């Protein structure tokens, strides 16, 4: 940009007062607002039908992207309550192992074992994490970082639940199109529910905990109880992801707690924009195909995630989603600096 000039940003006319209140006067403007959302939803719903065009491989990639998107939604929910998780693999692994357990020891069909594992896993996750909910910020992050490693060690040490070999030969799901459809619908539903939830009075309390938990405490609300509920809600998409992934591959083992399931959602959330649910999903759908392209690099992929994470945290901390949103809703133009204008 030339010296003496600055970039001026002006909101489009349909935005009234607040960021999410709009004054709409024509179908074109309605389309302008809803268009991107409808396109995204339609794309997600139609993609699983295109097996012939894309091939089974890219269907599986989309499936994994959905799984990571669920973990990212869970991460963003926790973040919105002021809890930073460095170990999404914890929720994922607990859900995965519950499914393996229900499937192997009780023999429940997937229709029951998945929802049951989702809820039971979320309850267990909440119970384990409850004592450390007094912590926040770095301290909580440190604990969540430790939890998956710790559970992995316990399973390795005790040999319960298959020990180092895991539980294999689980019941079969109908196929990739089915799994993909289920996850797509769940991703959309969870995104919608989370967005709505944060607009209710209940969500207001959760957001207040993120902004300033001391004042919530001063308001006479039980912060720890709210946080526990938030962990339970946030755990469910993640444990569901673990459950479905387990049945899809028909095996569960210690890799369910692998670093990759912690760092991928984290990176996706940061790339998409922390605290934005849609941004997290977007981040997952950018990151997972990208990482598939990098498959040839082997474990170097994780280094690439790390570099990407670093790049976005330092370079574009608002994330792609907020960046795109700003560009979409604002005009930009170059104007001369006001001092200069006065001189003339």
């Amino acid at each position, binding site marked *: 940009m030339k010296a003496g000039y600055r970039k001026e940003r002006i909101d489009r006319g349909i935005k009234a007062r607040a960021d999410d209140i709009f004054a709409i006067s024509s179908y074109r403007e309605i389309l302008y607002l809803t268009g991107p959302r409808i396109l995204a939803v339609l794309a997600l719903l139609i993609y699983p039908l295109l097996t012939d065009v894309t091939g089974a491989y890219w269907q599986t990639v989309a499936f994994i992207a959905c799984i990571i998107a669920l973990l990212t939604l869970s991460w963003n929910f926790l*973040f919105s309550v002021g809890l*930073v998780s*460095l170990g999404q693999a914890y929720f994922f692994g607990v859900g995965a192992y519950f499914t393996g357990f229900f499937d192997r020891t009780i023999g429940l069909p997937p229709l029951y074992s998945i929802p049951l594992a989702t809820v039971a896993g979320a309850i267990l996750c909440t119970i384990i994490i409850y*004592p450390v909910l007094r912590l926040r910020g770095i301290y909580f992050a440190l604990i969540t970082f430790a939890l998956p490693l710790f559970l992995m060690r316990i399973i390795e*040490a005790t040999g319960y639940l298959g020990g180092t070999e895991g539980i294999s030969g689980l019941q079969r799901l109908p196929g990739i199109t089915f799994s993909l459809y289920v996850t797509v619908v769940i991703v959309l539903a969870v995104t919608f529910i989370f967005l709505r939830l944060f607009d209710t009075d209940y969500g207001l309390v959760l957001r207040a905990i993120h902004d300033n938990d001391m004042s919530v405490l001063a308001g006479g609300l039980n912060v720890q109880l709210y946080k526990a509920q938030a962990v339970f809600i946030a755990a469910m998409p993640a444990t569901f992801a673990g459950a479905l992934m387990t049945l899809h591959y028909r095996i569960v083992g210690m890799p369910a707690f692998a670093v990759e399931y912690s760092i991928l959602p*984290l990176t996706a959330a940061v790339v998409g924009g922390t605290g934005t649910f849609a941004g997290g999903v977007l981040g997952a759908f950018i990151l997972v195909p990208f990482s598939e392209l990098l498959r040839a690099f082997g474990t170097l992929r994780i*280094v690439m995630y790390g570099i990407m994470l670093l790049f976005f945290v*330092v370079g574009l901390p608002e994330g792609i989603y907020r960046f795109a949103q700003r560009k979409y809703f604002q005009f930009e133009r170059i104007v001369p600096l006001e001092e200069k204008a006065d001189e003339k």
Partner: protein
Amino acid sequence: MIESMLVFGLVNSAVLMLLALGFSLTFGLSGVANFSHGGIYLFAGYLAYFLLKMGLPYFIAVVLTIFITALLGAAIYKLIVIRVRGIVLNEVIATFAIGICMLEFFRWLGFVTYEYSLPYIARGRFTIFETTLDYQRSLIIVVALLLAVFLWFFTHRTKTGLALLGMAQDEYTALAVGIDSDWAATYSFAIGGAFAAIAAVMILPLGIININIGYEVLLIALAVTVLGGLESTKGLILACIILGYAQVITSTFFAPHWKEAVYLAAILIVLAVKPSGLLGKFKELEERV
């Protein structure tokens, strides 16, 4: 049996202390939780290995390792962390990303075979309380004690140390009397790196260098820091002793695998009973609810 437990508990405590000291110091002085501590630790290990392989004398190699690792710590702050300083989440994510990059990069390079090990400083062993102890392990205790004394002396008797301590106690007051926050943080990252390097040179000879150690080091640092309370060096030492002995006792009476479970159990119990840590005082209300 009791004697050997006492002796090896002490060794274990010293190991934990060496591992946690750098992390805890950086955290206490600059308020940044350096999640790349494990990565720095292994970096120091590999650096020492390659310097020794180049044929440098042991002493020079070790001093060089400590110096270069300290520079690395300072560089991490100066190049990256300084840009996100003050936004706690971004600090955590940035240092976490650096740590993972380093560790997974080492894994990719294939630094995992048996040839990657550091030499003992002194071979040989002696008997104390009916327990045979090798010189390396006894040296670890000595170095841990020396570092603790050095740290106390540094933060209480030298001008630089006092400035850093002031920054840790109250950043704004420290700024008001002319202490530069970024200078202090760079210093604390460098010292943290140097301590990680000392720990690596002392502890890594006991086994082969393994990537997962990097993650474990972070866990240990976390357990000790949370258990002891942040700002007190006494709390740190106490936490190391408790954890060290608890580990030895569990691995003697139960299976050695359960050693790892001790960290988390200790953290959970302490947080449930006394959330500020055993001897923690400051920041109780600010940082924790």
